[in-house]
């Protein structure tokens, strides 16, 4: 059972307090998008062995959505950060680099 620290209220929350929200940083494709782009948005997900970025909600706590960067193999948590970004902030990417030099996720490094 994971522990993730909610970046809003600061609570180190048990997984039972949290609701998972799947892969982070998807770009919404609306009307006008072509079928491939829309299918990519709606259906296609990363399934990495290693560094991953996810959405979580502190559902049984402050109710806020946030992001987590963690390793799917070792369960190491590199950091959590606010939901209101379209990609991981520099500090988080540096934290990942410090532990996993040369990491790659989608086109992020």
């Amino acid at each position, binding site marked *: 059972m994971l522990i993730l620290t909610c970046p809003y209220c600061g609570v180190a929350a048990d997984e039972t307090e949290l609701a998972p929200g799947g892969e982070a940083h998807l770009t919404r494709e609306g009307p006008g998008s072509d079928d491939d782009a829309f299918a990519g948005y709606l259906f296609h997900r990363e399934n990495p062995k290693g560094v991953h970025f996810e959405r979580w909600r502190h*559902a049984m706590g402050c109710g806020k959505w946030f992001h987590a960067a963690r390793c799917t193999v070792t369960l190491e948590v590199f950091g959590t950060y606010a939901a209101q970004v379209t990609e991981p902030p520099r500090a988080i990417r540096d934290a990942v680099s410090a532990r996993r030099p040369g990491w790659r996720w989608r086109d992020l490094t």
Partner: protein
Amino acid sequence: MSIRLNSGGRRIDRDRVLRYRFNGRDMAGFAGDTLASALLGAGQTLMGRSFKYHRPRGVVASGPEEPNALMGVGEGARFEPNQRAPATPLHEGLVAVSQNHWPSLERDVGAVNTALARFLPAGFYYKTFTWPRAFWKHVYEPFIRRSAGLGRPPEEADADRYEHFNIRTDVVVIGGGIAGLTAARLAAEAGLEVLLIEQDTIWGGRAPVDGVEIDGNPAQAWVDDTVAALAAMPNVRLRLGTMAAGIYDHGYLLAYERVADRPDSSGAPRHRLWRVRARRIVTATGAIERPLSFACNDVPGVMLAGAVRDYLVDYGVSPGDRTVIVTNNDDAYRTAIALHRAGLSVPAIVDARPEIAGALPEEARQLGLTILPGTGIAKVKGGRQVTGVALCQQGGDGAVTQEIACDAVAMSGGWSPVVHLWSHCGGKLIWDAEQAHFRPDPDRAPTGADGRGFVVTAGAASGALRADAALSDAAAAADRVLTALDQTAGDASPPRADVPSEAPLAPVWMMPQRAGADLRAKMWLDFQNDVKVSDVRLAAQEGFTSVEHAKRYTTLGMATDQGKLSNINGLAVLADARGDAIPQVGTTTFRPPYVPISMGSIAGEARGDLFQPIRRTPLHDWHEGQGARWEPVGQWRRPYTYLREGEGVKDAVNREILNTRSNVGLLDASTLGKIVVKGPDAGRFLDMLYTNMMSTLKVGRCRYGLMCSENGFLMDDGVVARLSEDTFLCHTTTGGADRIHAHMEEWLQTEWWTWKVWIANLTEHYAQIAVVGPKARTLLERLGGMDLSRDALPFMGWADGTLGGLPVRVYRISFSGELSYEIAVPAGQGRALWDRLLSEGADLGVMPYGTEALHVMRAEKGFIMIGDETDGTVIPQDLGLDWAISKKKDDYLGKRAQARPHMTDPDRWTLVGLETESGAVLPEGAYAVAEGTNANGQRRTQGRVTSTYYSPTLDRGIAMGLVWRGPERLGEVLTFPKVDGTPVRARIVSPVFYDPKGEKQDV
């Protein structure tokens, strides 16, 4: 035969006799006994029957790893099956029954399977029960179901109380043997908060039994001193009878405490589940002795050598008068020496090793014991009890060299560290060739949130089997914990043990080494699941060479065993059959719990009223007093109908409908979701959430809206009221309120976070009462306070005001097709409004109605219901709701998905009404059949029923359904077969059965 000796037994109190019952017989043991030691002490070696062949079985082990002596313990509401007798403390009045036999343990019909064993090899059921096909349902399946499982489940509701206990601590030490005590002491002395748990009911582990000396004193004295010191420290918690069941991500540990297994009146829970978060976990879980694989190694009287020693030293019980020792290592000589010193006969020590040189064998030799090097057991003689052993050369094929009469055999194939907990959360193992076991690889520990290992092993659990090595390993483990947690060591110095040196063991995976098929078919690897050497070889031969496949094909290591006794021996046989080394074969996955835990402990307090809290509306008590039949909707309870004296449910529903249609009905609509959306961008936000345009709604008006998920499917519906320029109130379905609130928050927080919108779920702030029927306005006017005329409050309008002096908001919306007002009032005043409506409307025929009347009336009007007409694959266009989908908006959630080719396919099933030719009610969920069959040979279908009711208004059955190109086919007749195959014919009609022009609601 097993006996209780006249002296000895460090754990028992011979002055306190405990009476208990076993298989209906009155028995007696001593305080401190386990059920197994008491039975052995009473000469009861036969303790159960094996699972598959029903072979007679006795106890093999002295701890929870026991595979054979599984008992049903307790009676009635306190009955628990599959309890391991050596881990069940005896108490006065305990009632136990053995398992897997009929009619009795001694005379068991199922034992015929032993004679059939050659026809029941591994996987026989995959091969046998496939033909003839018709036999499956009536012959094979009932037979397999009766044979499956071990003990019988309890038949009564559990009488006991259970609880969960949540705790955070720096360090948990699992195992109260000398390694665990050492690690706990060193961690605690350094100032860390420590929880030390031990599954047994005493501290000290094996060391006191094995005669270990620590710091110059007998182990027991050191154990007593250390426990006393720990107990005196404020930063230490000690718990006996508490088993670590599983280790999970990020330092989470579940531990199972058997608090009060004997009935008592203290009010203590029976079991307590500890939910622990630890910064570091030390597993000092010891090691388990391995059996040896020789023919008939399952006959009662064959036991693990360490267990024989335990019963002798701990309980003063000997499994026999004449015990043959069979071993591949020095440790088993301790058993020989202990038996000899207790005055029992040890006719021979059969040692598979050709050369024997250690200090313990030397001691045995000096005591005059016979040691037979390079020797093995060809076969154990005896049926329900060992009568002797036939010996052979270990390197040979089993030719008998000698026979020895005996009534017990103590076997030892070496010891394997208990690696289960280490492995639960991903800790990796390495093969230790010298000791012939897998042990934890400290460089590949389970990792925590900081990316570092959070489990450390100590003592025999690390593979440090001898006491001296175990103590230094425990000290090193404590050091690693202190370093990881930046803690400085305290003053205590690590203890030292004094033990004789031991010569290396010789791996023995089969005895004798070149045993033929006859012998292999009688060598048990897994006693509990009746898996033999021949079965594992067969699995490999048939291609199940992966260890996980072989496990499932043979059932090796399943059930309560979980690899405790059977694992390494089975892997070795599989490796040999594959021609691989053991590490290449690997192990199966170790999964929690380490030892089975009770269902009650998992549930904890979450049972009965606390299982799922019930949500009650402000009118709940009134409903209850008026004969409400409850319908669960989400966590709410809503009245399905109100039963009057002597009335049937159908009659009550019909009465409520007819009265509402002709007079006036009241519905408690308080459970409907009420979500306020407010802010300068509220309209823009709702335009994205609903398929219709909400931003154009005028203040004072209401609009019915549909909400879709991003993949286009209809997820909720409800009426939206615009309360002010920047404020909307969104009604949701009863079950959807929390989900829709979360859905709104998700999009607001994660996609449109710059929009100025705030959301609040006010569902429980208001009681909401629907006043429905042609006399609704008359009734409300009697309460007085506001103008509810057609002009002042037209259909789909809302107004604030007072009614009967109560502050209300009145919505003129209708889900029944009648003149209808939904009146919201602060929750605390809901009952007052309800009572006023009932008293003022008595002469108007006012009558409450329940959810079933609501459903029928909405179906009469062709209104859809989320969950009936929708199932997560239905889009609004399927339901003829195009009028509620804005054509002007560029975007809304689901719009893009609804443009996908499959969604715009004219062949989609679409909503229609259905009328049976006979006027009967269509069966729920019935399918309309089409001509021909599909690719699977099944009858093709062309539609299905989504809602079906008897309409008292129309006095006939009405239904709605989704039908292939439905609206184009009005007037066609479809055939719906019932479950028994008889057809029901129904005509496709408009889904609006009642007042199609909508005149009644707009008066």
